[in-house]
């Protein structure tokens, strides 16, 4: 098994405050890693730094993606290389039709990889197929990106993009928040359909529930900017019973 993502001793500051204090994590191809932890433990921060969001200062450590220095790459370059982040809070882009956005983004990625633009019929066919699978009405794609979407629609739109762009590393930040059980199942099915031996997943969640649908290979517990415990999928169940308090104490 070869490593897809290697995070080594990562230290990150936001506005002069250290949020991640030397975090280490390796995701191999074909694996699903779950990251669990209380609010404020730094889960979103980790996902943002991997994706290259501005405003974070990496003071130590490294992130390798397929062996390459990820931190040296521009965020759009990372996207084209196959890093995808499904946001905890997807933003709205008024006046930009979702369909147009999907196409612009897909072609930007293809262009960056030196591939030809996808033809309109091929693109439409692919979108239609993915929409059907994720139970997304095509009408939704005529609306502005996430504008007036319900919480569930926004999350499904994230999974739709993931399915369309076919990234090799998928980071899902609290995909389950705001989803009812049916929507959760559909979204999880969408994710499971993408599970291949070449692809890796980092599933960030506060609750164990999501992991009933997306079954992880490895579970990490994060607290105060560090991974404090790692284990198999049973660790999630254990946490469900005992809660995060034990780790809070340990880190404090």
């Amino acid at each position, binding site marked *: 098994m070869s490593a897809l993502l290697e995070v080594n001793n990562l230290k990150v500051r936001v506005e002069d405050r250290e949020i991640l204090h030397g975090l280490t994590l390796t995701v191999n191809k074909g694996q699903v890693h779950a990251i669990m932890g209380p609010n404020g433990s730094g889960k979103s921060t980790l996902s943002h730094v991997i994706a290259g969001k501005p405003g974070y200062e990496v003071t130590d450590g490294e992130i390798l993606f397929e062996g390459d220095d990820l931190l040296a790459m521009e965020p759009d370059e990372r996207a084209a290389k196959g890093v995808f982040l499904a946001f905890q809070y997807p933003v709205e882009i008024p006046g930009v039709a979702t369909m147009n956005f999907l196409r612009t*983004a897909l072609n*930007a990625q293809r262009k960056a990889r030196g591939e030809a633009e996808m033809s309109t019929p091929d693109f439409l066919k692919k979108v239609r197929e993915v929409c059907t699978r994720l139970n997304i009405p095509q009408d939704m794609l005529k609306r502005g990106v996430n504008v007036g979407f319900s919480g569930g629609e926004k999350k499904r739109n994230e999974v739709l993009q993931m399915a369309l*762009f076919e990234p090799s590393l998928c980071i899902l930040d609290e995909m389950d928040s705001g989803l009812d059980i049916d929507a959760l199942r559909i979204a999880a099915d969408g994710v499971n359909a993408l599970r291949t031996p070449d692809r890796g997943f980092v599933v960030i969640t506060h609750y164990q529930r999501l992991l009933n649908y997306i079954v992880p290979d490895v579970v990490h517990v994060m607290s105060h900017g560090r991974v404090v415990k790692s284990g198999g999928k049973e660790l999630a169940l254990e946490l469900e019973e005992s809660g995060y308090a034990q780790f809070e104490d340990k880190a404090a």
Partner: protein
Amino acid sequence: MPAVQETVDRVRQIDVDQYRYGFETLIESEKAPKGLDEDTVRFISAKKDEPAWMLEWRLEAFRRWQTMAEPTWARVDYPKIDYQDLYYYAAPKQTKALASLDEVDPEILRTYEKLGISLREQEILAGVVRPDGEGAPEERRVAVDAVFDSVSVATTFQAELKKAGVIFMPISHAIREHPELVQKYLGSVVPTSDNFFATLNSAVFSDGSFVYVPPGVRCPMELSTYFRINEKNTGQFERTLIIADKGAYVSYLEGCTAPQRDENQLHAAVVELIAHDDAEIKYSTVQNWYPGNSEGQGGIYNFVTKRGDCRGRNSKISWTQVETGSAITWKYPSCILRGDNSRGEFYSIAISNGYQQVDSGTKMIHLGKNTTSRVISKGIAAGKSQNTYRGLISAHRKATGARNFTACDSLLIGDKCGAHTVPYVEAKNSSALFEHEATTSKISEDVLFYCVQRGLSQEEAVGLVVNGFVKDVLQQLPMEFAVEAQKLISISLEGSVG
């Protein structure tokens, strides 16, 4: 370096040196001597072979102009203009009495080609299959009048327009060929005494377009004029006059570009529109004069008076503008809603980057009963630019049932620019109903990052977000130009964000 910092730094660099139309065309030209006096006015009038009444009209304007002072109320700041240090007339040599496009200097044609404007009818017609005469073609076509410095060099589709009864020609020709129409309407919306720049224009205007659409005629194609300033130190003073007679309809678009130069150039145009009973005029502008470089040097000073007169009942005038160029923009396309039930519209996208200063907006003057107006303004400020919306909505005592809706949205990119909204409202009639909405927001880093995470570059992301922001206005442009305008918007914002 964290990307936020990078963004801020890039904005500080203000790189507007990406102007795509900054080439110069090397052609021989004939100029009036530098400076402005009565002889300059006589020189221009003589060059144009004008009748005596026209010269008198100009001279009267010139005399009045000498008594006037430059207005200072706009939020724009520029060094004093030396009106004696300018050329007021420049013409590409040997353009008199061209029998056909083949006689146009190939250099000029090449210029328009570079700008993406096809003047040759055969080229325009190339992709269009249609039997001569009957049967309107599926594809929409555009008749083009091209004005190079002070003269019109080519007008296309003359014959076909003539058949429909539409007059579309350089105003210099109309003065000779249709003096009764020109005399009746010229200065009837923007009088020679109107304001400093309009009065100057009245004295020295060189060329521009004239359109007359007879009663009941729907102009069979889009009309369009491309203005190009090429000569150094030369002011451009074009004059456009459009009349839609009873029940007529016309859609007209103007485009403007200029070469890159270190000095500032003056552009002071006047546009007059007249809509009679049940007539409609749609006037669109894509203004991309040279905005100056990243140090704020050079660029066009754009002082323009545009006004439409809804003279007849149920008439309608709609202004749509995409303003991306010029160092200084001073421009308020307005509507006088004189006819009962008449309607005025103003849709505006004004983008400023680098050191550009925009003070633009509209005036909706409600005089007739049940007149309505709608104003949608989208201002985008980046770099170190200043972007002001200035609007007046007024209802006369007799304008019962006047209605206006105004929405002004401003978007700021970076923290070195400014957006300002200056609305004036005067309702002398208690039944008038005026609504005003205004918002100002900063372009969201989170939105930009979302786009970038999906593979768009920063610049593409800004272009996409801004195009979304202005969508309501873009939709008002004729289809042919909407795509062009969309690209232009992205280009003008290049370098605005890291």
